[in-house]
């Protein structure tokens, strides 16, 4: 059975006797390559070679959902070595965002958000109505061929309206203030996003892909129960139902604090939850994590800090065993949430070897 077949089998609820090991290694690989800190015995390896070295499956390797604008002009300008300005020009005005890049250009961060005032929402509405979504089948087929069965295709797509506002469009603090000061403006914006996202969801429903990720980056500090229940869950229920009707499996990325959301996650409409990070790095125990996941599948589960020298290899392996014990067969084991660049790749390989040889 290939990793791709095993990946799908887990979502179909099959007991295969095997645990799929699917840590996300891209950032570790790209950072160490750029920084010149790749361990000597791994130099010259491609990313997929590294996954094979670690006996690991690949989760995200394709992103065939594409967007284009009919009339909006998008201009990208490097202001200096680190700052990329993107300006969206529309007939009703322009908005600008600036990305701060680190020295290796691997981890961009918005240092300026596009929506700053209530009036900017009108410009953004034009942008939303002007966009078109399509599926790039040739790119999808190339990606499938390259990954060669190492994982089942899946990807994340634009967030729900409020998470998009928090993370991409305004920044969390300003979005909270905007929601308080101009609730009607934000409510209208959320309605426009929901309306214009329909075309994206049509493409997703028709896509030749079985698993889709809501890349929401949920954190209870940002999304406490009040915000989750009022602003996020209605959207998630609507979209999950659409995708389920189109025979898709779904998972949601919850990579921050989640202890206040245990009951809400247990009640959520997804087939799986990705990136939940238990103590000591997160704020909920492994048992509380199990409660939150309920009948769903857990993707990941081993805190990333267990791959740092701060903790022993034995501690890391023992925790992996506990996760397997608690969650198998509803488990795709991985690092919560990605292996950091200073993480020990040999621990990743050790777990992969363990899962290659053990049966459950």
């Amino acid at each position, binding site marked *: 059975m290939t990793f791709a077949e095993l990946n799908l089998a887990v979502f179909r609820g099959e007991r295969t006797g095997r645990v799929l090991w699917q840590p996300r290694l891209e950032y570790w690989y790209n950072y160490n390559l750029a920084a010149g800190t790749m361990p000597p015995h791994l130099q010259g390896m491609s990313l997929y070679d590294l996954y094979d070295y670690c006996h690991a499956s690949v989760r995200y390797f394709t992103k065939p959902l594409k967007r284009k604008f009919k009339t909006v002009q998008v201009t990208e300008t490097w202001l200096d070595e680190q700052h990329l300005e993107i300006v969206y020009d529309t007939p009703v005005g322009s908005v600008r965002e600036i990305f701060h890049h*680190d020295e290796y250009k691997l981890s961009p961060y918005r240092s300026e958000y596009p929506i700053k005032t209530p009036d900017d929402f009108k410009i953004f509405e034009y942008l939303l109505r002007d966009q078109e979504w399509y599926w790039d089948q040739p790119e999808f087929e190339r990606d499938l061929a390259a990954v060669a069965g190492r994982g089942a295709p899946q990807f994340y797509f634009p967030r729900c309206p409020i998470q998009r506002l928090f993370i991409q469009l305004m920044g969390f603090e300003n979005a*909270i203030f905007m929601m308080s000061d101009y609730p009607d403006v934000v409510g209208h914006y959320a309605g426009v996003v929901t309306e214009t996202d329909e075309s994206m969801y049509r493409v997703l429903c028709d896509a030749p892909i079985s698993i889709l990720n809501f890349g929401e980056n949920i954190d*209870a*500090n*940002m999304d406490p129960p009040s915000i989750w229940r009022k602003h996020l869950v209605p959207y998630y229920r609507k979209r999950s139902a659409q995708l389920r009707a189109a025979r898709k499996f779904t998972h949601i990325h919850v990579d921050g604090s989640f202890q*206040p959301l245990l009951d809400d996650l247990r009640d959520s409409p997804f087939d799986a939850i990705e990136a939940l990070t238990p103590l000591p790095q997160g704020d909920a125990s492994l048992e509380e994590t199990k409660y939150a996941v309920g009948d769903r599948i857990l993707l990941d589960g081993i805190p990333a*800090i267990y791959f740092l020298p*701060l903790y022993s290899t034995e501690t890391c392996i023992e925790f992996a065993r506990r996760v397997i014990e608690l969650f198998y067969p509803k488990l795709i084991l991985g690092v919560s949430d990605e292996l*950091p660049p*200073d993480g020990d790749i040999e621990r990743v390989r050790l777990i992969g070897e363990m899962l290659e040889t053990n049966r459950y």
Partner: protein
Amino acid sequence: MDVLDQVRESVIEGSKADALKFTQQALDENIPPATILNQALVPAMGEIGKRFERKECFVPEMLLAARAMQAGVALLKPHMVEADKQPIAKIVLGTVKGDMHDVGKNLVGMMLEGAGFEIVDLGVDVPPEKFVQAVLLQHPQLVGMSALLTTTMPWMGKTIASLQQAGLRDRIKILVGGAPVTSEYARQIGADAYGADAASAVRVAKSLLEN
């Protein structure tokens, strides 16, 4: 409900408009600014901090309350005599080198300000030498560092080492926090304390002053 109660409630409810309105009303009623600060605005933030620790409110409510409090304080400042403005301590805050995350740090700053601390906020991506310079120039009692990435956490230890090298370590207490940071990590790098969140940071900061 008297006007001080209304000031308190407006901060707890997170209403900047009401905080401004009732703070101005209190001033118009000739209530001393220090009284408005110490009996309404500061206790309101204290109450929010307690509710946060009890998980009865969360970061969005804290942000709105802090903004309301800051609005009230800004209205009071021109009316306050120098003695009334004395903070209980000064703290230099920053997110360490390579890290651009600031929401947690900002919230800690707001909560500490609400509790009577003077904040010197160095911002984000702060290298060790900038922390050293700030300690030299500002003479704080405390230094607070935030990191949200496992790759930037090591800069906390390097900053502590730089402060040690500059002969400043004994002059200050250091608290650290951020998602991947743990109390064990704080101990290992030689910090004096670890703050799990913004509300506990106030409690921890105050306890450091007592020791």
